[in-house]
């Protein structure tokens, strides 16, 4: 375990990452390999794959994950790679494969436990040891119903260890009992992934940029970096929330969530996991969202909203209104991400100068400086030397 990740990060530094780190293809490749492939990623929730043969699949950085429920009900994770020629054994992002997985390229057949049932035209492979050609397992951890995968071993401890500090405050939500409320959302933004996270990691902009959120919880919003790259944002409702129709209607419809303790009944909260995962919790729903670099200038966003199993019509309507506020906020954030990303390409912008209210951004950048020391350099060491410089600085 990386010792530095076990303690709260030093956030004395007010400057953000240098501009070159937002438009260097070589750094993006390094981020894919040394950050995204080696850090836990939320794949979904156990409720997404309730029956044998159900699967979810998603790509992150250059990796492809497949999480499925086998014939015995056990959840397993694999790299979505046929052992023959590397094709996707499932082509869709979610679905059901009753009994077996059939590679759509040549027709190799895999059992739901990942073992190879048989290759297409078996005799053309001579004396093949089928046991050596099962799907390649991917590390999987299930935490309160959420499925986390990791493509390669990395510096983070188990998900349960990282979230241990907030275990108590999330336990009342009984997240393992959640049910999907909406389909997965999946979009692409024309910015570097860090420009998305920079906006999401602070609430300093809420008063100016998000009228609905400001109305709902702007007064008490606070970000808090925790050990292990975990962050917590607590946003209790304003005492006089309701200037705007959506907020007023939400507050009027929302009933005290009987399944939650008093302190959790009137607030939204967000729990981040370095470098790119967030679990958002409201009295009516829980959602996860995350972003991955497609390339230096394009970012994939992915997530899903879940509801609690017992839900009255009023709670359902309140959840709908909360989602409406959330979607409005998301649209407002896109513009901010684009502007921030553009600034990093400008010849004039000297870089971020961050407030105490932007401690989440500062902690995230500190985490990146720690994970990829090359980003500490003010200037790009040269596109052909980024990986080498990072290796040198890591020693």
């Amino acid at each position, binding site marked *: 375990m990386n010792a530095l990740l076990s303690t709260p990060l030093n956030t004395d530094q007010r400057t953000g990452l240098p501009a070159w780190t937002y438009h260097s293809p070589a750094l993006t490749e390094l981020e894919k390999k040394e950050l995204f492939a080696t850090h836990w990623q939320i794949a979904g929730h156990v409720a997404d794959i309730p029956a044998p043969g159900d699967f979810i699949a998603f790509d992150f950085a250059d990796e492809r994950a497949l999480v499925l429920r086998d014939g015995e009900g056990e959840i397993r994770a694999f790299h979505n790679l046929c052992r023959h020629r590397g094709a996707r054994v499932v082509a869709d992002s979610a679905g059901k494969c*009753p*009994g077996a997985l059939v590679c759509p390229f040549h027709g190799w057949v895999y059992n739901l436990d990942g073992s190879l049932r048989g290759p297409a035209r078996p*005799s053309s492979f001579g004396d093949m040891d089928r046991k050596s050609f099962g799907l390649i397992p991917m590390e999987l951890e299930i935490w309160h119903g959420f499925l986390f995968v990791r493509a390669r071993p990395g510096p983070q401890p188990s998900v349960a260890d990282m979230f241990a500090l907030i275990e108590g405050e999330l336990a009342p939500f009984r997240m393992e009992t959640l049910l999907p409320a909406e389909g997965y959302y999946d979009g692409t933004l024309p910015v570097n992934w860090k420009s998305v996270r920079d906006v999401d990691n602070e609430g300093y902009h809420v008063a100016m940029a998000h009228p609905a959120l400001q109305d709902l919880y702007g007064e008490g919003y606070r970000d808090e970096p925790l050990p292990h790259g975990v962050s917590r944002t607590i946003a209790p409702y304003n005492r006089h929330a309701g200037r705007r129709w959506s907020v007023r209607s939400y507050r009027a419809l929302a009933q005290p969530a009987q399944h939650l303790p008093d302190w959790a009944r009137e607030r939204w909260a967000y729990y981040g996991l370095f470098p790119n995962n967030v679990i958002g919790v409201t009295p009516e729903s829980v959602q996860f969202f995350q972003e991955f670099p497609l390339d230096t200038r394009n970012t994939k966003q992915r997530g899903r909203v879940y509801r609690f199993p017992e839900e009255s019509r009023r709670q359902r309507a309140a959840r709908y209104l909360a989602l409406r506020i959330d979607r409005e906020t998301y649209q407002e954030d896109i513009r901010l991400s684009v502007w921030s990303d553009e600034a990093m390409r400008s010849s004039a912008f000297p870089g971020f100068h961050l407030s105490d209210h932007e401690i989440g951004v500062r902690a995230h950048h500190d985490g990146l400086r720690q994970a990829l020391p090359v980003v500490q350099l003010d200037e790009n060491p040269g596109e052909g030397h980024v990986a080498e410089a990072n290796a040198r600085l890591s020693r």
Partner: protein
Amino acid sequence: MRGFPADSAAPPDPALTEFRLPAGLPGSGRRRYAAAMSLYLRGAISEEVLETYRALAMDDRADPTEELRRISRIRAERVPCI
């Protein structure tokens, strides 16, 4: 194609059930082929029959038994008269 044991009171064989899925069900082509692979490994069908199921795996509406009959008919017609 080699014969299958007659149905009895024994619990249904999942591979046979899948192998006999009727044409037309969504995803049935791949399911029939995956089951055919199990039967091939048991020695219950030949690789040639397995290959017929593979060729029809992506066509849920196709009936592999019909295709096997068609192939047999063509072969019979090609047998030279003695």
